[in-house]
């Protein structure tokens, strides 16, 4: 025994270390307890009556004056004359060109073209899927809207690729570009989609150009990130060999790095398309044409059936575009017979040209609409499940949401900022806490305290539900392989669907209310949470699990004492992801009765006198996003596993 024990000095140091750690844990707990008590006391003493927000806050007036200035100077200021207006014109030309091509092909031509692209780049199955999918747009009577959505998506993706791929290459190759872009992309990715629609309309007016640019801003971070990843993953041995043969920098890029990264770049395009489609649908709010219009109109009338067809069309479009690009990416890894491929491509081009010459009026196709059966179903649910849905809605609203909202709204803003700073420092470190507290103070300064706290309450309830459902399902999937296999395609499908679509089932079940937004947010955010939780749990080393099992742990003990604690990194990441998604969706829920910030933003688009308030609400959403993201991300960084 003595032979194996470490030297005395070491033992003492180790003991001191353990002691220090224990003491630090004790301190943290004491400080946390004191803080909680102090917070409660401070709240009880200083709580306000939670006055409604003024319609005339300084921030609103400021934004209104900005708007007025822009309106007055749109045709005179050099910033607009030589900058913004040209961008708008350029994007307009791009959209027109894409539209001319797609419409020029005609119904038969476009169906043939998409099928041919699927066939040549992704195999005959995908080609068939594309054929059926695009035919369905005609059958649903949504051909024009679908083409409009496609036009905007394609334009935005073209722009994103044009800007994103070179930037991604630069970010991977030039250190300072990468270092500069990283924080910018971080912020861009946590910005809820709603937030930057208003600034876009301010600069580019409502309509297609603003929609395409907003979509591009939403989608381009993924293009840049994934491209940079692909370029930096190119094996250095190949680059070195090509250098040793005397390649120039340009030859290295064009003949080695880009071709070797092409699988990843195609995946970047896939992600860009999915994000773009999701955003294009939302830009219906700033008057962009397409399927989104149908959904927005129907949702505002709470007519699920009317929205359902458009929802189906969006899902079909998403699935077709996703399948084509993922299978194309998979195919880049497989070597193919060049001649055969050339023959197929040639044949496909001929077929597309031939099809383009045929004129088929899609309106004359046999039509089908889901409106009636869906509305019947919704009616049936309302009739038979009324007690259940109503009970759930009222139970959660009255039991959790309302009290939480009341507490948050009646908290004086300075106390909220202090609490964020104090607890933030405790769990995430002072840097993250400082940023989060600044964001909280910013929200107070915008004059939308009540609405922001209402939105925050909704987000908190939704994220709690999301985490409970997500962790439970994830843990279940991690233990039952068969269940995991069965659920995976559902999760895959869920992640390709644009966020708007998730509102439909929520509205069908719960009508228009705050709770509807919560349900939509939960449906929207649960799939990635399940995925991250499952991966985190499965990543727990098998040896540790084996050791715990052989020590006699029950499955429950194994989960609670070994797997969940060890998967903490994955869980925190899941929480972070979940929060960002939930916030985005809760805001969209403003369309279906969730009110608060989301509603302010939408109202800002439609009513001129509410513009300033809308813009302020958008900014408040961004600040909320930063606050929540910093707190959880910082928590993840400081407490997560070291990698």
């Amino acid at each position, binding site marked *: 025994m003595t032979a194996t024990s470490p030297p005395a000095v070491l033992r003492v140091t180790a003991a001191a270390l353990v002691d220090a750690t224990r003491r630090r844990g004790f301190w943290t707990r004491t400080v946390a307890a004191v803080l909680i008590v102090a917070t409660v006391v401070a709240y009880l003493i200083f709580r306000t009556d939670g006055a409604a927000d003024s319609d005339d806050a300084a921030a609103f007036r400021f934004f209104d004056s900005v708007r007025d200035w822009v309106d007055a100077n749109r045709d005179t200021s050099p910033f607009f004359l030589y900058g913004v207006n040209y961008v708008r014109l350029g994007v307009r030309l791009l959209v027109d060109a894409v539209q001319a091509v797609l419409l020029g092909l005609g119904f038969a031509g476009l169906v043939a073209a998409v099928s041919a692209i699927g066939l040549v780049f992704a195999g005959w199955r995908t080609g068939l899927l594309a054929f059926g999918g695009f035919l369905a747009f005609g059958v649903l009577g949504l051909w024009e809207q679908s083409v409009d959505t496609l036009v905007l998506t394609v334009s935005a993706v073209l722009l994103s690729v044009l800007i994103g791929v070179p930037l991604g290459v630069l970010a991977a190759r030039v250190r300072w570009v990468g270092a500069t872009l990283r924080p910018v992309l971080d912020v861009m990715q946590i910005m809820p989609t709603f937030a930057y629609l208003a600034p876009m309309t301010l600069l580019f007016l409502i309509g297609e150009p603003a929609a395409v640019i907003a979509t591009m801003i939403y989608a381009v971070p993924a293009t840049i990130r994934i491209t940079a990843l692909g370029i930096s993953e190119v*094996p250095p*041995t*190949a680059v*070195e*060999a*090509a*250098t*040793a*043969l*005397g*390649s*120039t920098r340009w*030859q290295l890029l064009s*003949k*080695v790095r880009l*071709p*070797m990264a*092409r699988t990843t770049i195609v995946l970047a395009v896939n992600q860009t398309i999915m994000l773009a489609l999701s955003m294009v649908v939302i830009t219906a709010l700033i008057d962009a044409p397409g399927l989104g219009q149908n959904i927005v109109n129907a949702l505002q009338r709470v007519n699920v059936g009317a929205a359902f067809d458009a929802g189906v069309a969006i899902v079909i479009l998403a699935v077709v575009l996703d399948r084509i690009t993922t299978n194309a990416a998979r195919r880049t890894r497989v*070597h193919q017979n060049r001649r055969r491929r050339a023959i197929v491509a040639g044949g496909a081009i001929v077929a597309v040209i031939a099809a383009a010459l045929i004129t088929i009026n899609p309106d004359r196709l046999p039509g089908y609409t889901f409106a009636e059966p869906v509305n019947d179903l919704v009616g049936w649910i309302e009739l038979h499940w009324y007690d259940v849905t109503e009970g759930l809605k009222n139970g959660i609203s009255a039991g959790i949401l309302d009290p939480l909202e009341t507490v948050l709204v009646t908290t004086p803003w300075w106390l909220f900022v202090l609490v964020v700073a104090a607890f933030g420092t405790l769990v995430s470190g002072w840097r993250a806490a400082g940023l989060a507290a600044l964001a909280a103070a910013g929200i107070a300064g915008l004059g939308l305290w009540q609405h922001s706290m209402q939105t925050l309450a909704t987000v908190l309830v939704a994220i709690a539900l999301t985490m409970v459902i997500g962790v439970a399902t994830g843990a279940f999937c991690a233990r039952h392989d068969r269940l995991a296999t069965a659920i995976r395609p559902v999760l895959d499908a869920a992640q390709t669907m644009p966020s708007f679509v998730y509102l439909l089932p929520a509205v069908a079940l719960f009508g228009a209310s705050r709770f509807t937004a919560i349900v939509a947010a939960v449906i929207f955010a649960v799939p990635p949470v399940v995925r991250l939780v499952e991966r985190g749990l499965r990543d727990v080393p098998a040896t540790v699990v084996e050791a715990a099992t052989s020590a006699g742990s029950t499955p429950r003990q194994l989960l609670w004492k070994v797997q969940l604690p060890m998967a903490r990194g994955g869980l925190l990441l899941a929480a972070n992801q979940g929060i960002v998604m939930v916030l985005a969706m809760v805001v969209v829920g403003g369309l279906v009765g969730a009110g608060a910030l989301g509603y302010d933003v939408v109202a800002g688009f439609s009513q001129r006198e509410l513009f300033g308030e809308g813009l302020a609400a958008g900014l408040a959403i961004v600040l909320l996003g930063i606050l929540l993201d910093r707190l959880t991300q910082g928590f993840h960084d400081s407490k997560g596993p070291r990698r």
Partner: protein
Amino acid sequence: MAPMIAVTDLWKVFGPRAGRIVGTPLADLPRAELRARTGCLAAVRDVSFDVEPGEVFVVMGLSGSGKSTLVRCLTRLIEPTSGEISIGGEPVRAMGPKRLRDLRRRQVAMVFQHFGLLPHRQVLDNVAYGLEIQGVPRAERHRKAGEVLALVGLDGHEHQYPDQLSGGMQQRVGLARALAADPEVLLFDEPFSALDPLIRRDMQAEVRRLHAEVGKTLVFITHDLAEALTLGDRIAVLRDGELVQVGTPEDLVGAPADSYVADFVRDVPRSDVLTLRWIMRDPGPDELCEDEPLSHRTVIRDAVHRVMRAERPIPVVDGDRRLGVIDADRMLAALVSHHRQVPA
């Protein structure tokens, strides 16, 4: 004849402000101490050697001895810290980017341990890559690539992709790619370390055959002594970035410069490497010898039969000049002894 490659006082130091080390007392510190004091790693220290045209020059050392860095310094894939390199009489460190590219394209080609093939190109286009970036027209570069593929025994595989080939075949592609531009010098960076032993032996034979056929100057990096002895006309032993000894395989085995080299070559069967020169003795006065002499370049093993059967000692000659004699006693001692032989 002027050397093909001449390296003089070459240094490569990695780390912060590496340039300040060379030429100061810091440079004399042992590696570990230098690292502790400055955070810099001297990968190549004050190395000088010449490689003659048509020679196979092997650089041998354990991993971390700086041999891969050394070979990369020759064409400035890694920029040397100080020293001179000349290839074909031209100073490499003075070359501008364009001239350097030209050197890499036409004069010096390299074969890598992990092949460095381009997975998205067929074998033919991998081999033609060097010609392609020089702007050689397609038909011409494909013809040339086909020729070198035949030379390395890969005809028929032109239209396959690298991942469809075995490791040995992939390295043949790497070899063909290096040969395609008909360079004067070939650099091999542990080309066969990633291959299994049988294939490695094949590839070594292949290199010997190619060297005999095309007569290039070869610089060959390896950590495998057997490989060094079979391939090398001369071998340079590198330790911690410093040259310990440069010499023929015989020199290394017969007269290791220090205990490090001696350790390295300890298990090499001497009779396979050393020549009679190392074990002959002076003839006694009036000693009677066999009539037919042996050349002093004969490897011991090849002389065993004659010497053991001869009744009298056999003279060892260099042309017409008699250097000494060899008899059965000396031969037996050489065959059984593991002691170090002292040159006569």
